[in-house]
Structure formats: C-alpha cells, structure tokens
C-alpha cells in the first residue's frame, strides 16, 4: 500500500496527542495529580490538542474534496473512519473541561470523572483509527489481531515520552514518567518484533490460480489490461524491496524504541533529564514515522494479485 504522507502524519501525531491525553486522564483518575500540577496539566492538554489537531488537519489533506469533509461525521453506524472523526471531535470539549475543572478546584470527583472520560475517549479514538486498517480484509498485514493493540501501545508509548519531556520542561524532573516511558518503549519494541514475525510467516490470502478460479492449477499473468500504471497499481501495487524493508525495520527499532528506552532510563536516573527526555521524544517521533511508513509500505493488497504481483 502506498504510504501517503498525510496518513503517516495523521496516525503518528494523533498517537502522540491522544497518548498524552490518556496519561493525563489516567493520572487524574488515580488521583495522582498533585495540586501544584495546574500548569503541567494545562500545558499537557494544550500540547496534546495541538498534536491531535495537527494530525487531524493532515488527514484532511488526504481528501480529494476537502470542502465536503464534514460529511465524514455522518456514517458512524458502519464506518470506522467516520467513528474516528466523531470521537476525535468529541474529545476536545471533554479534555478542555477536564483541564478547567482541575485549574479551578484541584483534585475533585469531577476531575476524576472528566479524567476517566478523557482517558477512555482518547484511547477510543486511537482504537477507531486502528480499526480503519484492521477491518480491511483485503490487506493481510492489517486485518489481524496485532493491529488494534499495537496502535494503542504505540499511542501510550509516544504519549508517555511526550509527557516525560513536558514534565521535565515544566517541573524540572520527569518524575515516574521516565520509568513509565522506558517500560512502554520496551513493550512497544517487543510488540513490533512480534508483528513483523507474524506478517513474515503469514500465508498469502490467495494464489493467482485460486483468484481466477483454478485452485488446483497454475497460473501466470500473460497480458495486463493496460501498459502503464493506473490508480489501482499506484495505490495497491506499491511494493518495497525486502533489502530496504530490513534496513528500515532496524532503523525503526533502534531510533523509535531502543534509543528512547536508553534515554528515558538515563532520565529516570537523573542523568541530564531535560536533554534526555527531549531527545527521547525526537527519536520516538522519527522512529514512529519510519515504523508507520513500513506499516503501509510492507502491506500488500489482494487486488494486486490480478496483475500477477506478489501479495
């Protein structure tokens, strides 16, 4: 599948934004926000909504008819894309009310309730995004049990890294967030390895012979319907050489997960916390963009089979 820049930015940036919101909500739900954290929470909600807005704005650039984008909010009964849009918009007033309530009253029952709603809403939005891909039966690399939990894990990982950096900037130290982020980096690392193992061992959805109704025969594409690439081949026939994929996988693991693990570990031991957490955030952002590029670039669509391509 062709990795479109707009979708890479959408899924990565909303992962950071909603991931951070989820952690803020979790802290409030558990009553762990100290009364002195007013500025931190206000900054956290602002930063997370900026990330989410950047991602959602990028997604609009994927649309051919941007002026009709509002129509995408109407079909939430059947469409995960529509649900993502509705959930993403609903989370804004909740998150803002959560921040305002804490600013005014400090920890209270209302803050706990709004924090819990923010936590569920932000993870719910990420889940909707993941299900857009996980529900597509023609793409075996997406339609599997890894996609949805992985998206949630990467959002929680990126949110933790962002939270650790923000807490260090605002309060001078990352607190427990550095250890949490390091732990999430380790979990995300393992999850990504498990996903790649899974798609590497998966059987193709069909063979060409089976796709043209000769399951016991052999088939080879002789003449294509057209000589030049068309929309289907540009979108669905996108392939990446195994050699390049292997190199990018190493880069994604190293920059996206291993380096943040190391840097957050350093920060949790109070070794240059500001530089470590900020660098960890930069690494995670770059690594997750590479990881997301591969999520699309390595995915194959069964329709390309009719053109004799490997799926």
């Amino acid at each position, binding site marked *: 599948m062709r990795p479109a820049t707009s979708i890479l930015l959408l899924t990565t940036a909303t992962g950071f934004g909603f991931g951070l919101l989820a952690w803020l909500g979790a802290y409030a739900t558990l009553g762990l926000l100290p009364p002195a954290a007013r500025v931190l929470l206000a900054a956290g909600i602002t930063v997370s909504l900026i990330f989410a807005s950047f991602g959602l704005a990028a997604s609009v650039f994927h649309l051919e008819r941007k002026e009709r984008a509002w129509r995408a909010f109407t079909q939430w009964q059947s469409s995960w894309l529509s649900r993502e849009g509705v959930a993403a918009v609903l989370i804004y007033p909740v998150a803002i009310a959560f921040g305002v309530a804490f600013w005014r009253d400090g920890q209270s029952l209302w803050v706990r309730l709004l924090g819990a709603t923010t936590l569920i809403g932000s993870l719910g939005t990420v889940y909707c995004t993941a299900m857009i891909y996980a529900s597509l039966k023609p793409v075996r690399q997406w339609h599997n049990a890894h996609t949805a939990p992985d998206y949630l894990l990467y959002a929680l990982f990126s949110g933790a890294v962002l939270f650790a950096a923000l807490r260090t900037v605002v309060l001078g130290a990352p607190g427990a967030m550095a250890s949490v982020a390091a732990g999430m980096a380790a979990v995300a690392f393992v999850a990504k390895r498990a996903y790649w193992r899974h798609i590497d061992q998966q059987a193709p959805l069909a063979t060409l012979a089976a796709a043209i109704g000769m399951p016991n025969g052999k088939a080879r594409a002789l003449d294509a319907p057209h000589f030049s690439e068309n*929309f289907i081949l540009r979108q669905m026939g996108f392939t990446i050489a195994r050699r390049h994929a292997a190199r990018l996988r190493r880069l994604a693991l190293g920059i996206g997960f291993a380096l943040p693990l190391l840097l957050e570990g350093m920060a949790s031991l109070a070794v240059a916390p500001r530089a470590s957490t900020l660098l960890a955030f930069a690494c995670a952002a770059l690594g997750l963009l590479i990881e997301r590029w591969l999520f699309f670039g390595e995915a194959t669509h069964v329709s390309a089979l009719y053109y004799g391509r490997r799926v």
Partner: protein
Amino acid sequence: MTMLPERAPGAKKFGLVIDLDTCVGCHACAVNCKEWNTGGEAGILPDYDQYGAQPDGVWFNRIHSYETEEGGCSRTVNLPRSCLHCEDALCVTVCPTGASYKRVEDGIVLVDTDKCIGCQLCAWACPYGARELDEKAGVMRKCTLCIDRIHDENLPPAEREPACVATCPARARHFGDLADPESEVSKLLEARGGLDLLSDLGYRPTNKYLPPRRATIPSAPAPAPSPDGKGLGAALLKLLDKALSR
C-alpha cells in the same frame, strides 16, 4: 446511508454472469463500457496523458489474460474484472459519508459523486480493485451495471442490458436477475456451476463467473535441457562464451 440494506423479499438481484470458457479477451466490453459511461448518466470518465507516454484513466472494466495449467493441460484464460456488486460489500460499509450505497430494489452498488470526499478507503476495502479514483473530479468511480440502460423504458426491452453485455462478440457476458431461479442467468449457473472470485474473503459477490471447461489436449512436454559441458564442441563453446562475455 452506508449500512447494507436488508434484502426485501422479492427484490431483484441484478448482476452479470461471465463465461471464462468463451471469453476471447478482445477487450470490446471494456471499450464499449468506457464509451457508454463517458457519455451516459455517469458523466465523463476521465483520461490522463491520453496521447503521451503513460496513458492512464478511469475504466470500470479491465481485462486480464492468464496462462494456466491444470492436470497437464494448458490454456489461456481471459478474466474481465469489474465491480461484482457484492452482497457483503465492505466498500459500502467503510464509507464515512454515505456516498457509497447498495440499492435495496436491485442490489446495485453505486457512488453518489455529489457526496464523495475522495478518501479512497472504499478502494482499499475492495479485494477486486473495482473502484478507481477520478483524479479530475476528486471522487471515486465504479461500474453502475449501466443503471441508465437497464432501467431506461425508452429503450426496446432487448436493449435494456449493460453496454459490456450488449457488445460482447463471443456472447460470454450475460445479464439478469440472479434472485429469480427462472432467469436465463440462473439457469446458466445451474448448468455450469458459478464461481465466486476470492470466495474465502466472504464478500459474497453477485456477479458470477462460469469456470473454464477442463482442457483435454495435453500440453507438449517441455523441451529437454540441452546437454552441457560434454565433449570438445561444448568445451569450445564455453571458452568462446567466456571470452565474449568479458
């Protein structure tokens, strides 16, 4: 509304039955489809760079040719590929705007181009590659089963069939109501056995393919590999080959 409609009792199920045994791969159906749909109700089907080096454009119907072998016999199979108007059409349910829909009265899957935002998710959801982006209008396009012909009461009844069916010189394409067991297409399926493309994916396509009949003339055996590396002649040739490939 992108929820799939409940099938009403007695509703029609219009679709195509395509005979892979008689299709000669002439592309006439694709050409007539393009011709009809670029001027009919569906409006212009765009072309890009049509006189240049990389001509491209939107087509509702595309014809593939395959070399196949089964049971020691080989043959060419031509496969026209277009929208199959599936009963479980994922392209409809993924649509966030309601532009994609399946008609209750005859099961035809259509795009309302006034509502489509061109997010292209429906194209990703279709395993048959049947939906293409109109890059000039920024909306998705697909086979309409020539809805403006089959329901046009100004046409003589015999002509109320899709352009691809009307033009097929090998009579490999048949149009009719697949919900009616007495229709010609249902009888054809009964006699020949219908084939669902990629049936394992569970889209339950309406369009069926009649499988190619088993070839009975065995293919000629593959030529034996030439003896290599034996005798003076082969040694000389090898030397020559080495010298020339430098």
